């Protein structure tokens, strides 16, 4: 990076557009975290592009004073892929929601993850359709009563992290709107990842699904219900940090310290493990019997798609030389017709 890059501040990333989310929406917190982190990356502002689909969270680009593209429902990963392939020099971030990414755009999400295109995906998960005023979403819990499911939802919800891991995603993390410091750290980690970075952000919709994550975010419950994943550290949690997660056979279980049991008996978290099995098990940890893990579940290296696309082109240019249009047209079986009508073949 050039040393001449001016120091950027949060203000530089705030657009002049009035933010129109409902007062109290969790989106504000995510916006603030992103606007705080991006200026600190040492990347010129004009290199950032935020691409979104449709939904409350997809209004995100309007509030960022970067290049932004508010596209159509579910298609942000496809648009971002084209952009990143055409312009690998750009930092492409996707703002999407649980409906946008997991329902209408499900195919594009799994494809971008398997390809490992170098884009960052912020999936705001509020477990509800907000912009269409309160229908159940693909992450809504079973039995949920909403406008479209007055008798309770019958759909088994997606587990976004398990889905991402199943796609072979190389960076998978979870954070929470109001865990500001944690969210910023997670965003920084995503920014540093070369392939696709997928972050599920628990985000409260105070209008249509208020308190969806209160079981873990309420001050009193937070330390007991949240498991912070730290690479290389044993999995310890609780207000008094007196509990941990242990691997017994093929199950993760909570252990209370004491009686000879200590942090040393807990699973040491390895986000770089080549085998995604433990990350998958971690993604399946569900309340109320297990704390909800947040942090980086997986961060592994795999060649990113956009780099390989560029390399293929560069390799071909190296072998064949940069193509000349004349050669392309005047090739194969060609023949000449003279002014006298005489035919000469080559």
């Amino acid at each position, binding site marked *: 990076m050039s040393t001449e890059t001016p120091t950027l501040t949060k203000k530089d990333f705030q657009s002049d557009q009035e933010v129109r989310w409902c007062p109290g929406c969790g989106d504000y917190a995510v916006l603030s975290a992103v606007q705080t982190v991006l200026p600190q990356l040492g990347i010129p502002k004009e290199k950032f592009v935020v691409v979104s689909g449709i939904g409350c969270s997809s209004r995100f680009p309007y509030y960022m004073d970067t290049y932004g593209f508010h596209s159509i429902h579910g298609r942000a990963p496809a648009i971002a892929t084209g952009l990143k392939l*055409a312009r690998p020099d750009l930092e492409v971030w996707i703002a999407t929601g649980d409906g946008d990414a997991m329902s209408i755009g499900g195919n594009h999400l799994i494809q971008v993850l398997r390809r490992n295109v170098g884009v960052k995906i912020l999936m705001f998960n509020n477990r509800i359709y907000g912009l269409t005023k309160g229908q159940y979403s693909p992450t809504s819990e079973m039995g949920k009563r909403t406008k479209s499911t007055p008798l309770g939802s019958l759909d088994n919800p997606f587990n976004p992290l398990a889905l991402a891991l199943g796609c072979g995603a190389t960076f998978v993390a979870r954070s929470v709107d109001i865990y500001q410091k944690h969210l910023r750290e997670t965003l920084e980690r995503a920014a540093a990842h070369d392939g696709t970075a997928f972050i599920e952000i628990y985000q409260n919709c105070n209008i249509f699904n208020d308190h969806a994550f209160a079981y873990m975010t309420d001050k009193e419950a937070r330390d007991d219900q949240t498991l912070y994943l730290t690479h290389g550290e044993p999995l310890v949690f609780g207000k008094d940090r007196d509990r941990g997660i242990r691997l017994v056979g093929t199950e993760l279980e909570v252990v209370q310290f004491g009686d000879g049991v200590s942090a040393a008996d807990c699973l040491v978290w390895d986000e770089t493990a080549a085998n995604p099995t433990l990350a998958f098990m971690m993604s399946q940890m569900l309340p109320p019997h297990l704390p909800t893990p947040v942090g980086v579940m997986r961060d592994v290296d795999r060649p990113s798609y956009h780099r390989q696309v560029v390399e293929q082109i560069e390799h071909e240019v190296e072998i064949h030389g940069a193509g000349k249009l004349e050669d392309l047209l005047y090739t194969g079986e060609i023949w000449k017709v003279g002014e006298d009508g005489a035919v000469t073949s080559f």
Partner: protein
Amino acid sequence: MSTETNEPVVAERSVATERVEDVVIRFAGDSGDGMQLTGGQLTSTSAMVGNDLATLPDFPAEIRAPAGTLPGVSAYQVRIANYDIHTPGDAPDVLVAMNPAALKKSIGDLKANGILIANTDEFTDRNLKKAGYESNPLDGDGLAGFRVYPVGLSTMTRRALEDSPLDFKSRDRCRNFFALGMVYWLYSRPLTSTTAWLEDKFAKKPEVAEANIKALKAGYNYCDITQAFQVRYEVDAAHLPAGTYRNIMGNSALSLGLVAASRRSGLPLFLGSYPITPASDILHELSRFKHFGVTTFQAEDEIAAVCSAIGAAYGGALAVTTTSGPGLALKGEAIGLAVMIELPLVVCNVQRGGPSTGLPTKTEQADLLQSMYGRNGECPLPVVAASSPADAFDAALEACRIAIRYMVPVILLSDGYIANGSEPWKLPQIEDLPDLRVDFHTDAAGFQPYSRDPGTLARPWAIPGTPGLEHRIGGLEKEDLTGNVSYDPVNHERMIGLRAEKVARVAQSIPDVEVFGEPTGRLLVLGWGSTLGAITGAVNLARERGLEVSRAHLRHLNPLPSNLGEVLAGFDQVLVPEMNCGQLAHLLRAEYLVDVSSYPKVQGKPFFRSEILAKIETLLGADNVH
């Protein structure tokens, strides 16, 4: 001539050589018989000797339909001429039938007294039954109106390849080249082009190349030695305009046109595509041109294909997506987005028979109205159409020109007939190609993302990475100039008007439609797309017969050329033949209040020249002029 003349004749009898102006040859066989390849070789060879030509491949959607059945028949028709021709011919002079099913499907088309070469080895009871014949048609009088040459193509090929190291089955697969050799002898074609092609194609399997070359020569020599045919034909080189030529298929020409546009604009080409018949070959072709800086992205679906192209366009690439009718339907919403965000995008629709999955491998022009109107809201965009295989090159360049100059998505229409057909292409001089150079907007002073060029109404192309031009685009209605989201009712109406006016102004940069024949008169035949050949042939013939008829052909379907209304008003009658139920006719009536006569044909097949000629004669009350 009768059928008994196929008896081997005494060697000393000399064979007469007859010069013909043109000939139509059809190879028909099983999907696995290599008919497309065989026809393609006859095409290449004829191109190399300077004939004008036109081709019509006709193959089933199934990759390998059950052998010997009617649905499994694959055919390739080529017309070779010593003059400027426009169509692959209405009816074949020569039919090569590799099995009974092929015979059954094509014999109705063969001209009276036409030559039929039939592979007797395949006329077994079982195959006859599969084709629905109760008895062997080669034995009865049913084919008395043709010159029938029953030849044991398989037996002869096996005999020729007795020394080949190939297994029995592989040897049998060379029988199409035996048949090709016979046709080469019959029409005095040189073998060199095909032998060179085989040597190149099977460079790594020389035994395969050798076997096919042997079969080709055996077929040729069989005719030479046995003098099975009493007459041998010659078709002289056509008097094509001076220049360098290459035989080209429509999908290839379209691909090359896109690469040319990339070079002439200085923009890297990005193709986002999802495989679909009959457009996939464009994806295949362009994926071979990586050293031209071409990025090809095989997306997960049609929607991702167009969306990836939109993303690339946003980044400053020459962005293209290729598809066929069903895919265009899926892309509709995203194309609307491209209209809203006003970025250049070329959507190539190689039309096929519809609706729904329809007839994937057959041709049709029934997506014109979908192209015009198939999006939500008021969403006009320019539509251009290729009219022949070689013309697809120019049409692609024109679509790119409009997209770039007007910052707008453009639909480029081709069809299955153009895509898979081929013709000689007079290669352009590179310096004669349009200059499509682009200046991205870079000046931050007073930058407004939705300000407009006063002439074209194009908005500036300000690509990410440009300092000071950070701005937001999207599918929500834009405020004039600023591009900010706006729900203002008057602004909405103004923006709809601006987007429509921008498309309308494309007319200022396109040539007037040209009338061939008298500029006014009793009858104008107006067409668009791949009907050009049949219309031209029919109108030329009608005029030779003294009928007062002119013709014109549209490259631009939206906007229409500025002078079209005036042209239409100059004729008593306007005939519009189209491979749909009258879609252009519908547009013309709406636009000009002209009562055009629609001539629809939706059989998955191109028009015959004779069909259009008959229609002209009817309209002019000249049915009896012959």
